[in-house]
């Protein structure tokens, strides 16, 4: 495994689109406050951010899909090195979308990210692929491409809309999971890219929070908003430029839990229910 695979790509902030949309979200916060305490009005105030987030999520799933297609081509060509790179590329897109995969698409999530499962999903491919074996990979790779294509189709459908409660649930759960098995070796152990998984998970949390919730939370409780944003950065710092041997697992565990607690505290500010952290 090349060393570079085990080290998260440093990227201080979310994409420009996320930052720009974050500013718009903050402006909408004024409207949120003036709307009063109604749940429906609060949801409307979050609608713009939710729409922006959908674009982000589609973009990431398409990265996952395109990576899987490259993987498919490389496997057919018998090029293990290219196939490994494509798997990692696909995986990064998937992990950044994880706030919504299990929450909104549980069946597809189960098929794509099954663990432990030697027949389907990323990990059934990962285990032999990173041992340099391509035999028998055609079927699970074809299935992965098909499942991701279906995911993309359902997500991109004009009628599909995220609900704010589900998004808050999704990022709170993911923050908790960063402090769980993900901080203790992760799932992509054969590729050695578990730190990348955590990094992209946090990017996904950051995107949802900044695009959808930050402005509204800031309008009601600027101190809480700052604590959440700082905690997201803290989680990033735990995995930035790190490999598994150098990650402070205990610190990451604590930061993940603290982020989840802070996101739970944001719920009443958003007129949402305390996020459920179960699957």
């Amino acid at each position, binding site marked *: 495994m090349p060393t570079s695979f085990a080290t998260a790509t440093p990227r201080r902030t979310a994409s420009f689109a996320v930052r720009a949309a974050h500013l718009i979200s903050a402006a909408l916060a004024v409207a949120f406050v003036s709307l009063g305490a109604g749940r429906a009005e609060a949801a409307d105030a979050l609608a713009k951010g939710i729409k922006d987030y959908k674009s982000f999520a589609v973009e990431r799933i398409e990265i996952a899909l395109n990576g899987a297609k490259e993987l498919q081509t490389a496997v057919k060509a018998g090029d293990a090195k290219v196939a490994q790179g494509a798997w990692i590329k696909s995986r990064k897109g998937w992990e950044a979308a994880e706030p919504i995969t299990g929450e909104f698409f549980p069946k597809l999530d*189960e098929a794509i990210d099954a663990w432990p*499962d*030697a027949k389907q999903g990323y*990990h*059934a491919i990962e285990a032999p692929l990173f*041992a340099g074996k391509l035999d028998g990979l055609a079927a699970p790779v074809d299935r992965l491409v098909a499942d991701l294509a279906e995911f993309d189709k359902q997500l991109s459908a004009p009628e599909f809309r995220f609900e704010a409660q589900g998004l808050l649930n999704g990022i709170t759960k993911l923050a908790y999971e960063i402090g769980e098995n993900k901080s203790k070796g992760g799932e992509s152990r054969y590729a050695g890219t578990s730190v990348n998984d955590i990094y992209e998970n946090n990017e996904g949390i950051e995107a949802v929070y900044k695009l959808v919730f930050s402005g509204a939370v800031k309008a009601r409780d600027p101190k809480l908003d700052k604590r959440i944003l700082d905690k997201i950065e803290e989680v990033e710092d735990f995995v930035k430029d790190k490999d598994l*041997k150098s990650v402070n697992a*205990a610190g990451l565990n604590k930061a993940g839990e603290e982020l989840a*607690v802070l996101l739970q505290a944001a719920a009443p500010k958003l007129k949402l229910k305390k996020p459920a952290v*179960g699957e």
Partner: protein
Amino acid sequence: MALAACVAVPLLLGAGARSTPITTKEGVLPSGTELNEEPLDQPNELFASELAGGKRSYLLNLGDLLFSSPAIFGGVARQAGISCETCHQQGHNNPRLFVPGLSSRPGTFDTTGALFNAKADNGVFDPVTPPSLRGAKYLAPYGHDGRFASLRDFVRNVVVNEFAGPEPSPQVLDALVAYIQEISFLPNPKLTAGGHLSAEASDAARRGEMLFVKPFRRDAAMSCAGCHQPSGAFVDHQVHDVGTGGRFKTPTLVNANFNAPYFHDGRFDNYGDVVGYFDRRFDLGLSEGERADLVAYLDAVGDAKEPTVRNTVQAGLDEIAAFVSVLDTAIPAHNQDVIALTVNEVGGEWRELGENFPDRSDTSVSGGLAERLRARAAVRGLVLTLRQIEMASAEGDYDQAAQAFADYRQQVAVATGELKMAEPWSLLNPAIRDAHFAALKQLADLAVK
């Protein structure tokens, strides 16, 4: 519950993994090493206070927490998630312990290697067996070479010198010593309080008892019982050179059936090998039958009524309840260090318990999905409520911490029902466990080049 039996994988991955891969790119571990499947049966741990009809003290529970916490160590050990518990599971030993470069075989560990503290490095590869701590208060001096007369000094040496931890506070040492001194020998119906065999022992064991106290034919001043004194927990509190490369203290034979491998360096797997060694070393002239009788005697002395206990939801809940009771004292005392320690360790215990309930992505397990998901959700809620306690106390808001602790207590009552409801579909069920680990092994097999 014990930390993962194997420290090898955490070291390879650099994380305190409990659920770890069966194989890694870095290599395959020796046969006998526990990889990721913590046995369902755990060493039984009994405390003297409870055996006497009392209850665990605050100091005992705090010591138990510290014993399980990597935070008292430093450097590599802390980073790798290693704690006292790693080598002494449930206050016992760990025959599956294997640290690459520091173990000669499973169940051994070089405490004077450079990995965990360069200052401890004696330049010799000399792994020893971390001993069982059952009955430790009767077994001074401490360390295989008996260099420490005091348990407290020995514990400090482990923390500071062997594992590069910061100088422990008096409270930390008090608690660790209190915990270790409470770990009792396990009841053995074959042995009387005075160290004689009871009516439950076999005839062969009785013949062995006679040989055990019989003077050696080449030196009438010596006998097995001369060092392993039956009336004194089968020790003499001395170190002796029995030809194994130095002077080492007499180990107890009480409950020793569960202490293999034997001798300071774990060179012998069984009593037969041990008796054979002494027969040759001291020219005892034992017949085959006499050796068998001595083995039967050791087997009777070393037995225990209930050496292991099954890991269940209730066992996990009981241990967590003991640990978390520390907060009853620490929150009113505004003791932030102890609150943080407790939240981190108990949160880890809850997570470990929760990981026994496979989620939706675990396709190796069918049935009980709704129950499993509810159990996982309950555990997660508890972990986050515990974290609230720590966050509030860190801000100096002990009223809020106390409120969160009250919430936690209520949540535990609900979670207990959810966990027990889901237990049949959990990894605590041997059939489910087998299916889960078979799936993990399938993946691992795919990863073999």
